[in-house]
């Protein structure tokens, strides 16, 4: 109840509050209706199943707050981490392999950033093209098979996706750590503030002397490095890296948690809390549906409906008009 009043405390109902209420409502209903839902084991499992999605959401949030979007994140998740697995399997050593993977991730980010910031190509097209290109490079030459298995050489770092600390899975801790780092970056550092500024009003940001273009490049480098980190956690967790995931609908799930949490695509708003609550909501819904043994198509339908409800509620409670709408709204 205290949580509820804190949620409803000051100000009106923005999307973060709506989604938090929705999350609490579903959580309570599941806890009452579904035997075995409200147990520590299941809640940890719930967190674990969405932790990679959450980490990706954090990276995406940085770009979206800066009024962009990064559709190449799944490629940046899959290809550099699969490269690390391949190199390690060929005996290059753990540190050089990770170094090369990280370098590739940085290159992807820089490429995105330069095309968006300097060539001024809209981020939607840039990152779509770069993502397809990176996935293509992986498919053509880097790997023998599209599914790269986790080599024994990397078992020393397999704990990032597999083990647990005092019962809490490391992948959940990885999500937590990433949330803290991104949170501090966004709220407590100068470049983080500049990200908000560049998303809120790029023109004014530039006039005040903030280096807008380098800030944009930095956003994309952050998102692809975060994606690489998520990729390593995922690879360790499922003992392989399935580079086909680029062709699947993951990127929509990432956008879903970001938008659902209330980070407007028009930029300048939201933060880590939004991503966490969006991720928890999706995780809770999917967990409950799996426990109820609901079919795959039905799960997709429910997921779509929830997003629709959240966005509808936001637009009813906070209607847009010429004053509140921003250029760049999608």
């Amino acid at each position: 109840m205290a949580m509820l009043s804190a949620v409803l405390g000051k100000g009106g109902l923005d999307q973060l509050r709506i989604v938090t209420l929705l999350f609490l409502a579903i959580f309570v209903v599941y806890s009452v209706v579904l035997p075995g839902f409200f147990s520590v084991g299941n809640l940890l499992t719930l967190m674990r199943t969405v932790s990679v999605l959450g980490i990706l959401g954090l990276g995406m949030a940085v770009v979206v707050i800066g009024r962009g979007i990064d559709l190449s994140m799944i490629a940046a998740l899959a290809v550099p981490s699969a490269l690390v697995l391949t190199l390690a399997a060929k005996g290059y050593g753990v540190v050089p392999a990770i170094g090369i993977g990280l370098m590739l991730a940085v290159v992807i980010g820089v490429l995105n950033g330069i095309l968006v910031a300097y060539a001024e190509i809209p981020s939607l097209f840039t990152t779509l093209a770069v993502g397809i290109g990176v996935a293509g490079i992986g498919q053509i030459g880097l790997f023998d098979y599209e599914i790269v298995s986790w080599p024994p050489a990397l078992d020393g770092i397999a704990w990032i996706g597999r083990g647990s600390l005092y019962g809490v899975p490391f992948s959940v801790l990885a999500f937590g750590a990433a949330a803290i780092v991104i949170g501090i970056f966004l709220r407590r550092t100068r470049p983080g503030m500049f990200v908000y500024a560049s998303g809120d009003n790029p023109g004014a940001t530039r006039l005040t002397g903030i280096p807008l273009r380098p800030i944009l490049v930095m956003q994309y480098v952050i998102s692809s490095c975060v994606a690489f980190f998520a990729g390593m956690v995922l690879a360790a967790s499922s003992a392989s890296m399935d580079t086909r995931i680029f062709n699947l609908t993951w990127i929509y799930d990432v956008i879903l948690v970001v938008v659902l949490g209330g980070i407007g695509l028009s930029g300048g708003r939201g933060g880590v809390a939004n991503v966490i609550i969006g991720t928890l909501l999706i995780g809770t819904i999917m967990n409950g549906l799996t426990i109820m043994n609901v079919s795959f198509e039905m799960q997709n339908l429910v997921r779509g409906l929830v997003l629709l409800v959240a966005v509808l509620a936001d637009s009813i409670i906070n209607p847009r008009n010429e004053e509140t709408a921003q250029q760049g709204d999608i």
Partner: protein
Amino acid sequence: MAGMIKGGPEMKKLLKLGMTAALGALIGTAQLAHAQNSMDDPLRDDYYANFEGRKVVFVPVFMGLDLTEGWSKIMARQAEELGYDYEVRNSNFNTAAGAQTLTSLISEKPDVIVVQNPDVQSYAKLLRQAEKAGIRVIQLNMKTNYQTTGFVGADVELIGEKQAEAAVAKCSNKENPGKVLVLAGPPTSPFSAYMLKGYENVLNADPGMNLVSVQSTGDYESSKAKSIAQVVLQQHPDLCAILGVWDNTDVGTAAALQEAGKADQVLVTTSGGGGELACKGLREGMWQYYVSYDVPGQGRDLNALIMAALQDQNPVGSTKTVLYTPLVTYTPETLGDERCWSLDTLR
């Protein structure tokens, strides 16, 4: 020699006769020897000439998997030996892209299309159109509900039955029914729908079995298999068996069990092409029962059907051949690395 010839004209005549006879015998023998050495095979010329300038196109769901790379290598080798064109048009796990490829192939008119269907419905109409346009269509391992010139692949229902029987052997218990989780592929894929039928054939007939959950792993995603297995293990800590859809997917299933410390308790059964991963999984305890549809064997069946299709003079669609692959089951007891193929060992 001339010095040796003495005597009268009779003698000379006799000698001449003898030499002629000897020469004749020699020539006769030579002719006989020639006949034993070589003869024209009346089939041969037409056989090879028939393949000249013909074209076979492979439309897989996705290249870069052990299955598709294996099939493709075997098909490419035969094409090279016999001198017909062989091409791969990858649809990259995108059904729309695959449909587009098929549409453009219908106007390009290759002689044979080898197609691996993502589901039982999407390509059915296009395959019918292709056959109407005079292209022979061979469906590979994943078929639609429309039968074309040929099908090579596993009897998926039988795979399901075999897997379920392995689970029954371990878990069946009337007092306390053995709990089973099914991790399927995409709902409309032949490997989900038919396999589920096979599971049900066996599990429903046994009162000692309890099918607690049937979940889809999306597009055979191992990470999804892992998270579903984790959720279900939470709900049913006494889970007895998991029936998986494909070896690559069930790497995730195995990871979930290992993390939960239940790799010894829960039987994992899976299926696949019998590549390196099959043996690796058995060796490392990822699964304990593996049904292989034997990619090298399928490759040979496939090549035979391609050859037959290229030689067939009858109207397209007048002959229809189904070749279900003989299945091979692997267990840790029958394990030996020589049983699993890799791209390098494919011949």
